[in-house]
């Protein structure tokens, strides 16, 4: 059953991608423009102010997400004032390559969007480019972007699922689980026993279980949503450096606030080594405080982004060669990678929680002689 649904969503994924890129290819052909793989992939893995559903990239059907700007007061309007704004083409100075940006219209007047970044127009009412980057000032952008939307949906999904699991226990008490609870209980117990209990002191681990559970399910659910190629999935949320940065910082903060005398002692005055060595070790240990969460951040970001890139690149084989027969190669490979990504989705959530528990465990460990 589960395999069937996985397979069916993968097939739909492929179908939608075919439809999406297919129509794009058609419109590109009309505009006499080459299909640009890296542009398509980069566009997918980065954030956007719209949620593209189907049809060609420009002029297809999209959900226009709200723009929220903090620029001398709060400004909110729909992103369709950019996507249906005034398109501007400028030649960059050196190579003469043309750069495209859009000026906002209506409530978005005075702003322009270039590569999904919002800039303020200068006194001449345009963007000033130096090389390929505009040098205009930017307002603070708190927009509900595609990733924020995906984040909200992912969080909502975790809430609904876990609340219904909790409801089962509240209703039935301490009995053998059924239904959703039966599926999730072993995973929850796994996080408690194999992640928290295994790495953190037995008398202290309980305090950290809610954090580890939240971080695990947040990452796992959002990873899985990222694998679905259409609404409510398709955003590259857990492959976004901002999200992984935030999660890594959370673990860092928890670790630092949990650190006991023994932990700080090992950082600033390493026991059991000579005094010059103690001075030598101090900066290394201080750096290691930050390299650990940094590795967490990079690991999740790179794994998820790479997965998205591989699947898209494999599908692109068909469109680069402009021949349907290449699907015979590209679809099985994309299918294989997608199945692998289902595993990776779980594994990365597990690893993040596991390493967080390991760092916390090291911070609360008592000295043993």
């Amino acid at each position: 059953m589960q395999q069937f649904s996985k397979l069916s969503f993968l097939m739909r994924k492929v179908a939608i991608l075919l439809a999406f890129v297919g129509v794009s290819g058609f419109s590109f052909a009309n505009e006499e423009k080459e299909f640009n793989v890296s542009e398509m992939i980069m566009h997918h893995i980065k954030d956007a102010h719209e949620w593209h559903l189907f049809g060609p990239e420009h002029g297809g059907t999209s959900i226009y997400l709200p723009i929220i700007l903090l620029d001398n007061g709060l400004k909110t309007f729909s992103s369709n004032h950019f996507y249906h704004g005034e398109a501007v083409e400028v030649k960059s100075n050196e190579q003469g390559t043309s750069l495209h940006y859009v000026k906002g219209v209506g409530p978005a007047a005075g702003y322009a969007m270039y590569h999904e970044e919002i800039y303020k127009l200068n006194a001449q009412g345009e963007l000033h480019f130096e090389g390929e980057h505009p040098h205009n000032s930017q307002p603070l952008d708190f927009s509900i972007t595609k990733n924020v939307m995906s984040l909200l949906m992912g969080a909502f999904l975790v809430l609904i699922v876990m609340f219904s699991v909790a409801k089962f226990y509240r209703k039935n008490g301490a009995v053998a689980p059924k239904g959703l609870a039966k599926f999730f209980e072993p995973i929850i117990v796994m996080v408690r026993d194999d992640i928290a209990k295994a790495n953190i002191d037995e008398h202290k681990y309980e305090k950290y279980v809610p954090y580890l559970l939240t971080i695990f399910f947040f990452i796992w659910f959002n990873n899985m949503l990222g694998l679905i190629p259409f609404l409510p999935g398709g955003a590259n949320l857990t492959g976004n450096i901002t999200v992984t940065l935030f999660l890594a910082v959370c673990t860092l903060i928890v670790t630092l606030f949990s650190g006991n005398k023994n932990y700080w002692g090992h950082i600033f005055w390493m026991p059991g080594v000579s005094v010059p060595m103690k001075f030598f070790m101090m900066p290394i240990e201080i750096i290691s405080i930050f390299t650990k969460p940094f590795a967490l951040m990079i690991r999740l970001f790179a794994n998820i982004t790479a997965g998205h890139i591989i699947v898209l690149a494999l599908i692109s084989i068909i469109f680069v060669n402009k021949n349907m027969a290449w699907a015979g190669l590209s679809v099985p490979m994309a299918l294989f990678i997608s199945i692998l990504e289902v595993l990776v989705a779980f594994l990365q959530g597990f690893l993040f929680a596991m390493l967080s528990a390991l760092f916390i465990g090291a911070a609360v460990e008592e000295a043993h002689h």
Partner: protein
Amino acid sequence: MDLILPDLGLLFWTGIVFCLLLFLLAKFAWKPILNAVNAREQKISEALELAVKTQAEMKALKAENDQILKEARAERDNILKEAKEAANTMIEDAKTKSKVESQKIVEAARLNINSEKAAAIAEIKTHVATLAVEIAEKVVRGELASDEKQKALAEKLAGDIQMN
């Protein structure tokens, strides 16, 4: 490049959503779930412990029963043995008693017989004596029936006395 640069807006929303999620899940999901799971684990381990204890108790009880049974059996054997012994002694006693009695009776009978025998012999003796006397009388009568015979006898007797 902007792929690896954090975005303020997304950071803001991620922070809010994640903290809210952590709070809500910790309070309304993880707590009841973990409590229920812990309670159930406690219940199961207690039940297992109880089972082990009950098993041990059953074992002890069985051992006790066996012991009681063994004792009862031993006692029964003992009683049987004693009864047998008692019966044997009783039989033995009876036997000796009856032997003594019978010996007594036999003795008495023998005494009786002896006395009877003696009496009978005495009687026979008298009888024989009488008979002998009678025979002797008849013989004598016969011997002395005529004068010649009386004379011959007297001569014979006198001859015997002379010879003696």
